[in-house]
């Protein structure tokens, strides 16, 4: 059982409190992403779990053992860094072997393990090279290999894919996830890329200013974002957000257009709807709004249509194979895909 428990973690740099209290429980074998914009404290949390950064208060428990006061070397973790941090003066073989050498394991065990790991990652032919002679993707693999050499209690990833090009990134995403599932090692994965978080994780922790905005399974977070922040951070193109007035069962757009909904709401609310949930058609039907098309982006599989309802800008994702209405389009916003947020707190309205 290698669960990770972070309890009431706080971190101050001088007077600046970057993490005002963070708790998280990761189950054994679970893959959890820490997702947020740069400066949200996600890397700091990871480094505290690794023991590379001192914490101000709180506890870190790995596999039932309180490691708060332990040095990184005694925590039984492995970490993959954003810049890979391969030892430049050691060959790939020695990079992989280093952790076992420190532990004074016998030479033949080290050899055997390096062989296994390098086969797993398909880097056998690189073992004699130096890091400087490797491509970015190869360095990434070696960094991964170094992490799995010791079969640690937990993996910590600090934006491991952000230095790779888009194609390689997609590929490594799948590979890391498969590897983690196969090895069954509890994983914390820090990223600012929502696609990585969505596709790889069992659960996502969305962070903002050191605080948890939402914890949940990827689809939960996509379908019921807990705040405006989460709503805009997850999903591409981003969710449309319009501040509207309520009038009984109707939402009144700034343009004066009205949309009736099934819910009873009070005062001003922020209405959210994902571009891919909006229905665009040529004919005006009941409860649809007039839509003026401004710009069409062709993406191949779909079109992204930028347009306006009155003066309110709205983005619509539209399937490629359906022809666009030529003159006079209108949109309808299906009621079960509407999100409502409090305009002051930004929180989701229940």
């Amino acid at each position, binding site marked *: 059982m290698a669960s990770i428990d972070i309890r009431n973690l*706080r971190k101050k740099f001088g007077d600046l409190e970057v993490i005002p209290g963070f708790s998280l429980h990761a189950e054994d074998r679970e893959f959890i992403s820490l997702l947020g914009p740069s400066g949200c404290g996600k890397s700091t949390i990871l480094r505290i779990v690794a023991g590379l950064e*001192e*914490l*101000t*208060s709180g*506890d870190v428990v790995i596999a039932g053992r309180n490691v708060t*006061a332990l040095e990184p070397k005694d925590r039984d973790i492995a970490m993959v860094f954003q810049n890979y941090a391969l030892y430049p003066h050691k060959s790939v073989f020695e990079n992989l072997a280093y952790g076992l050498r420190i532990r004074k394991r016998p030479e033949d065990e080290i050899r055997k393990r390096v062989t296994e790991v390098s086969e797993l990652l398909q880097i056998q032919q690189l073992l004699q090279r130096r890091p400087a002679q490797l491509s970015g993707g190869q360095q990434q693999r070696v960094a991964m290999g170094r992490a799995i050499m010791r079969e640690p209690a937990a993996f910590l990833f600090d934006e491991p894919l952000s230095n790779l090009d888009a194609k390689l990134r997609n590929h490594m995403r799948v590979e890391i996830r498969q590897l983690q599932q196969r090895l069954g090692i509890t994983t914390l994965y820090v990223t600012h890329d929502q696609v990585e978080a969505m596709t790889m994780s069992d659960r996502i922790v969305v962070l903002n200013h050191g605080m948890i905005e939402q914890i949940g399974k990827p689809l939960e977070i996509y379908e019921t974002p807990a705040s405006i922040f989460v709503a805009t951070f997850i999903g591409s193109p981003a969710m449309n957000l319009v501040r509207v007035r309520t009038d009984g069962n109707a939402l009144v757009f700034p343009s004066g257009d009205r949309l009736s909904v099934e819910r009873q709401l009070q005062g001003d609310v922020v209405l959210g709807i994902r571009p891919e949930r909006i229905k665009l058609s040529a004919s005006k039907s009941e409860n649809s709004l007039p839509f003026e098309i401004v710009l069409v982006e062709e993406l191949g599989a779909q079109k992204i249509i930028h347009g306006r309802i009155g003066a309110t800008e709205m983005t619509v994702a539209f399937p490629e194979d359906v022809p666009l209405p030529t003159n006079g389009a209108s949109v309808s916003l299906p009621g079960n895909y509407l999100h409502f947020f409090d305009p002051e707190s930004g929180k989701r309205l229940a």
Partner: protein
Amino acid sequence: MSGEQVYRAPLHRRLRPLYFLSPTLLILLSVTLFPLIYSLYLATHTVILTNPMLSGWSLQDNLREVFLESPEYWESFATTLILVVTVVSIEFVLGLMLAYFFYNNFTGRDFIFPFFLMPMMLTPVVVGTIWRFLFNGEFGLIAGLLKAMGVVNYSILNEPSTALVGIIIADVWQWTPFMLLLMLAGMRALPTSPFEAAQVDGASRFQIFRDIMLPMMKPVIVIAVLIRMIDAFNRTFDTIYIMTNGGPGRVTETLAVMAFRSSFEYFFMHQGAIVALSMLVIIIIMTKVLGRFMAGPRED
């Protein structure tokens, strides 16, 4: 954080930077602070090695002796100033020009470059002797060349009007390579796209150099000039000691030479200490003022 368990890293871990720094700090304090205090003691007392009977507090007398009773201190001050300003200006211009040439690609560049750096590796005492003999009126190479031009037995270092020029030539010879090295490193670290942009905009080679390259090199120039100024002020001792020992008369006696001679030729330790301490004050003022003046208004 009431009642909450505040985590404290183990003391030995928090004190680690102190452990790492303490040997160095201890050594540096003992070779700077301690001598400084001792210097202050020397400066405020009468300490004459050849006459241990005289002693006691005499700050006012010492100050009067050095700064007021004879013009020697102020003559040395002026000599030092002239020397520093002249050598640093010449070395800067020459170093910059040579660096600009070495910035080009040409055949044999990397081969000849180390030869241009050789003077700065040489022991200053040896540099001093070489130039002393080059300038020698009887058999020196330069005197020989002068003789060929009709000037008979002219010893540059023996004439009060030219002795300092001789010192300056030797210093420029030894330290221009240092400027060259720093300027070249600075130039090579610059991105080339601004030069290309200026070229597209129609700037001439000289305009690019003056309007783009020089301003971009300002940080390196400031550092290089500062280092050279401090070193010229502090460390021109060796060459002067060998070439003229301050003479003829006192025309090449800089403050450093004066401090040395007061202490170790006349054994008036207190006078030497006062001159030396005045150098420290001057160097502090010089770095502060020049650093600010040359750095200009901070942009960052």
